[in-house]
């Protein structure tokens, strides 16, 4: 392990930390923005609690547009917006902006699917009991969909780890970037292998945590 110099060790720890920041922060933002979007999409959909095409269509379109733009292009295309929000267009903080945007669109759809899985009968029962729309959303829809929402978040987290590797393009750092710069560009296959192994373990950990939570939450 003579290649693993203290400097390289420090770089790896820093890269891991950057990955965690990028993935964690963007996932947090994506959940916070994606859930309301998904609820709006679900509630305003035809046959929903308050069908409204004027709200549903534009949101659906925006979500699809963000999802169909390749991440590397999205990242560059929104640089002015990133600068506005993060105050800079390079670095880990700057990378969080496009990551959060992509993940929000992705999660909005996944969340919407999870909400659609909720048994319509439970909602009808709540209506029959005199529940308000807000009560149906927060006391029936979201609690019943919770295991699905957590599963969706797990999927998004894992995808974000992959996306974050591209964040090197805007100087975001992270494990993926380290692998490219040292493993590929400096011909250090050991570094590449180590980075890949860390990423695999990282993703595996996320997935196991997500699965465990889903199992705990659902009572099917």
């Amino acid at each position, binding site marked *: 392990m003579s290649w693993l110099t203290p400097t390289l060790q420090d770089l790896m720890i820093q890269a891991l930390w950057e990955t965690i920041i990028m993935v964690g922060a963007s996932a947090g933002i994506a959940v916070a923005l994606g859930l309301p979007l998904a609820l709006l999409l679900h509630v305003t959909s035809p046959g929903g609690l308050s069908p409204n095409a004027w709200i549903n269509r534009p949101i659906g379109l925006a979500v699809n547009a963000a999802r169909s733009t390749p991440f590397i292009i999205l990242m560059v295309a929104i640089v002015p917006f990133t600068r506005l929000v993060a105050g800079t267009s390079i670095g880990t903080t700057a990378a969080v902006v496009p990551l959060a945007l992509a993940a929000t669109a992705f999660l909005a759809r996944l969340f919407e699917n999870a909400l659609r899985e909720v*048994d319509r009968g*439970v909602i009808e029962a*709540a*209506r029959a*009991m*005199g*529940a308000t729309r807000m009560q149906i959303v927060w006391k029936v829809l979201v609690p*019943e969909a919770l295991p699905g929402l957590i599963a969706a978040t797990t999927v998004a987290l894992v995808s974000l780890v992959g996306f974050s590797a591209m964040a090197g393009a805007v100087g975001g750092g992270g494990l993926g970037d380290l692998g490219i710069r040292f493993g590929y560009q400096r011909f250090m296959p050991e570094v590449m292998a180590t980075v890949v192994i860390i990423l695999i373990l990282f993703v595996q950990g996320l997935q196991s945590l997500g699965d465990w939570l889903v199992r705990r939450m659902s009572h*099917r």
Partner: protein
Amino acid sequence: MTETAPNRAIVLQGLTKCFVAGGTLALDDVSLAVQAGEVFGIAGRSGAGKSTLIRTVNLLERPDSGRVTVLGQDMLALEEDALRTARRGIGMVFQHFNLHTRRTVAENVAFPLEIAGIAAAERRARVAEILPLVGLEAKRDAYPAQLSGGQKQRVGIARALASRPKILLCDEATSALDPETTREILALIRDLRDRLDLTVLLITHEMSVVKAICDRVAVMEAGRIIEEGRVFEVFTRPRHATTRSFVAEVIGHGVPDSTLARLPQPEAGEVRRLVQVVFTGPHATRAVVSQASRDFGLDVNIVSGRVDEIAGEPFGVMALAAYGAPGQVERAFDWMRSLGLTVTELHA
């Protein structure tokens, strides 16, 4: 019930509902009145409109036209807020139970109280009071997935009754259950009706459910009510062909054609008539057949027969092959009809 006109709990007048513009009517000018305290059944095949009809009572389904009056309240005139309050007075039980999978039994039962803004302590007290009524005290902390179908429906019933409604709507409440459990649940509903002074409106595609629990029944077909009356009357004297086939599922009025064909032919100078006789009322238990045989000089072959009970009233159904002199057979049947029996011709 006293001599005064019984209190009408649910009155539906001239309801019409069309789901697809220009398509067939799910409800076609339906009117119905359910008396306070009775168990009223709506029977029909799937697609007959009964599901739509029961949903108009709490306006889960809004009719295109007509009036819905529940406990004297014009439901269609209510604002959203008032409608929600009114819905709390109408419990509903569903075919697939519709329980919250992530709430325990106690939490499911407490749900209607929770959304009505009732404090936690009072909710707990009410749940503790209602679970014994459905026999589920021991399961209060179980999740629905851990319960059998019958237990799930008991939770559904407890939940429907949590906010002390006076009306219970049952939407195919036993259709997902096996016959034994169905009997238990129906007995429970009837028992709760008596104890809590409920008015029950139920829909079902099974006449056995109507027979087991209902006081009155309406039969629906193609969005219309084709027959309505006391359960005993409808079962023993069905007027509409659809009702007859429905009733036959439970009572088994039919005699196989092959059996009829095997009956002996009449001898010379004799006629043979095949009839079905329904014994009801005070003469249900009288020895009508042997008396007719004696008084009118008939030979009577009993092809099939059974005795049953509907809503506590006994009745019998018999298929007879009667042989005798031409005028005598007719006179015997007329005599039977004069006793209040229903005599209908079977074709061989």
